[in-house]
C-alpha cells in the first residue's frame, strides 16, 4: 500500500512518515502544495494524508485539482480543530475523512486503514482468536461459551473486533460507540473496557484486550 503525506510542518511530517512506514506502508512525502499535487497526479496512491495549511498551494486547492484530474484516491484531511469551516469545505471539496490537530498517531493510522478498507465487504462474523462476534445475531462467545453482554458492551466489543490487531484511541471509541466526544468523561470508556475484560478475559488464561497506555486499546490474540 502506497500513501502520500502532504504536510509542511517537518515535525509532524517526520513522525507521520515514519509511523506509516513502520506500520508497513510505503510512504512518499511532500512539504508544499505544488509538490503534493504533482506527486498525487503522477503516482497511483492508495491514500493521501493532506494538511490544509500549506505553502505555495493550499490543501483545498490541491484536493480540487486532484479530483478534477480524475483521481479518486481516498484523502484524509488534517486541520486545526477549531476551524469547523475547514471540515465542511474539505468534505465538499472531496475529502473522505477529516482529522483535527492535534491528533494521536494511532488515530491517523486507524483512519488511513479505514479509508483503505472502504468498499470491501464487511463480514457479519468477526473472529479474534477463540472469540466469535456474530454481528447479525448480536451475540458473542469465547471458546464456545456464550458471553452475556449489555448493549453498550457489545457495541464496544464489535468496534474493537472490527479493528482487531489495531490500536484504537478513546476518542475513536467514543465517537463510534457513543457517537459523541466525551472530553471530560473519557474514563467512561475505561470503565466499560473493565466491564468487558471481566467477561471476556477474566475467565480465560489468554487475554485478548490489551491496553496501550496513553494511546488506547487493542483487541488481539497476540499481546
Amino acid at each position, binding site marked *: 500500500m502506497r500513501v502520500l503525506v502532504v504536510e509542511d510542518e517537518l515535525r509532524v511530517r517526520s*513522525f507521520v512518515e515514519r*509511523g506509516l512506514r*513502520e506500520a508497513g506502508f510505503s510512504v512518499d512525502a511532500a512539504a508544499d502544495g505544488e509538490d503534493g499535487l504533482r506527486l498525487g497526479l503522477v503516482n497511483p496512491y492508495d491514500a493521501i494524508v493532506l494538511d490544509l495549511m500549506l505553502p505555495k498551494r493550499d490543501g483545498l486547492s490541491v484536493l480540487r485539482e486532484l479530483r478534477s484530474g480524475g483521481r479518486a484516491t481516498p484523502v484524509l484531511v488534517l486541520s486545526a480543530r477549531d476551524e469547523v469551516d475547514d471540515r465542511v469545505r474539505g468534505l465538499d471539496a472531496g475529502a473522505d475523512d477529516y482529522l483535527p490537530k492535534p491528533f494521536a498517531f494511532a488515530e491517523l493510522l486507524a483512519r488511513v486503514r479505514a479509508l483503505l478498507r472502504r468498499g470491501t465487504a464487511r463480514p457479519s462474523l468477526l473472529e479474534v482468536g477463540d472469540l466469535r462476534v456474530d454481528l447479525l445475531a448480536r451475540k458473542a462467545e469465547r471458546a464456545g461459551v456464550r458471553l452475556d453482554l449489555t448493549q453498550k458492551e457489545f457495541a464496544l466489543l464489535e468496534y474493537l473486533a472490527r479493528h482487531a490487531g489495531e490500536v484504537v484511541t478513546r476518542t475513536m471509541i467514543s465517537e463510534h460507540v457513543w457517537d459523541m466526544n466525551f472530553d*471530560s*468523561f473519557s474514563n467512561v470508556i475505561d470503565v466499560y473496557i473493565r466491564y468487558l475484560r471481566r467477561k471476556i478475559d477474566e475467565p480465560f488464561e489468554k487475554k485478548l484486550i490489551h491496553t*496501550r*497506555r*496513553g494511546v488506547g486499546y487493542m483487541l488481539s490474540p497476540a499481546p
Partner: protein
Amino acid sequence: MNRSIRLRIALAVFTAVVSLVALQIVYVLERFRHSFIEEVDDRLEESLGDLRVVMGTNHLEDWIAQVAGEHRREDEFFIEIRDRQNQLVARSPNVPDSGFPGARGVAQSAPIYWDFAHPRSPNGPLEVRGLETWVGDYHVCIGMSLKEVQRWYSGLRRNLVTSLIAIAVVGGLSAYWVAARSLRPVAQIAAQARTLGGSADGTLLPRTGSGDEIDRLAAVLNDLLSRIRAEVMRVRRITADAAHALRTPLTAIRGHLELEAARSESGASEHVDVAIEQVDDLVRFVNRLLLLEKLESGPGESLVRERIGLLAQTQTLVEHVRVIAEERGVSLECSGESVAVDADVTQIRQAILNLLDNALRHTPAGGKVSVEVRERGGAAELSVADGGLGLPSDQLERVFERFYSTRAGTGAGTGLGLPIARAIARSHGGDVTATSPGGGRFVLRLPLSGEAAAGAGV
C-alpha cells in the same frame, strides 16, 4: 448611595438658605427698629423744643394735656417736670405717683435717652423710649411708648419668618429635586454598569450629552472601559495564539512518543506512556481553551442549530456517565418534562457533560446528584444539583471565571468546564447560573424552540 447624596445636597441647600435668610431678617429687623427709634427720638426732641417755648408760661398745663391727649391713641406720651428741689411742677396723668420710672436725675442739661418698661400699662409692661434733660431750672423727663414700633416690628417679623419658612421649604425641595434629577444619570450608569458583560459586546455607559460633570464622568468611564476591553481582548488573543501555536508541536511530540512506545517492548515504555498521557492532558487543555476563545470571541454564527429534546439528550448523557457515578458511589437521578430547544447538539451535550462532570467531582461517595429538566418562566431549564459542600455566595459568580477552582473535590478539572458550559449557553441566547441551596446547584437555561432566534443576538 445616590439617595444619601441627594439628601445631603438638599440639606446643605436648606441650611444655607435658612441661615442666609435668617441673617437677612435679623439685619432688616434691626435696621427697622433702629430707624424707628431715631424717628421717636426726633419727635421727643421736637416735643422738648415745644416745651422750652411753653415753659414758664401758664400754658404749660394745657400743653401737657394737649400732647398727652394727642398721642393717646397711637403713641402714649409721658411727661414729668420737677424743679431743683425735686418738687413736682407738672406731669401727665399716665405717669405713676412713684415718679417717672427709670429717671436718673441727670446733672447736666444734655439729653439722655433710655428705654424702660412702663409698669402701669393695662396690657402688661409697655416699652417706652424716654428722654431726660434740664430745661433752665427744671428737670424734664419725657417719654413715648414704642407700641407702634412693636406692632410693626412683630408684624414684620411674622411676615419675614413666614417667608423664611416658605423659602427654606421651597429651596430644600427644589435642591432635592435638582440633585435627584442630576444624579439620575448616575443611577442609570450604575444600572448599566451592573449589566455590562465581560468582554465581547461593546456596550458602553449611557451619556446624557449635556456635557456636565456626570456626563464627563460617563465619558471617562467609557474610555476606561474601552481600554480595559482592548487589553482583555489582547490578552485573550495572546492566549489563543499561544494555544494555536502549541498544537503543531504537541502533535509532533505525541506522534514521536507513540512511535517510541510502539517500538519498545511492552513494559519497557512506562515513561513514554506517562509522557503521552501528559501530552494528552495538555492537548485537552489547549482544545478547551481554543473552544472557549471561539465561543467568547463572537456570537455563534457557526452554530449548527436543530430542534432537540433537552430531556432526551440529558437522559442519554446521564446514562452514558452513570458508570462513573457508580464507580464513585454517587447516586445519579434524572427527571423532568420534555422541552424542545433549537441548539447545536454537539455543543449542548458538551455543556451538559461539563455540568455533570462538575457535579460528580464535588459530590462525595454516598452523595446524590439530581438532574432535572423542565420548562420554567418561558425558557428550558436544566438544573444539576450536587451533594457537595456548596458555595459561599461570593463564589457563585467566580466559579465561571477561567481557571477558578477552590472547591475541594475528587480530582481537579482544568478550571474551564464551567466557563465553557456558560459560554455555550450564552452563544445560544441562554445562560448558566449557580446557586447554593445546601450543595451546589447549576442551572442551564435556553430559549424554547422557536424563540431562540429572538434571544440569540444577546
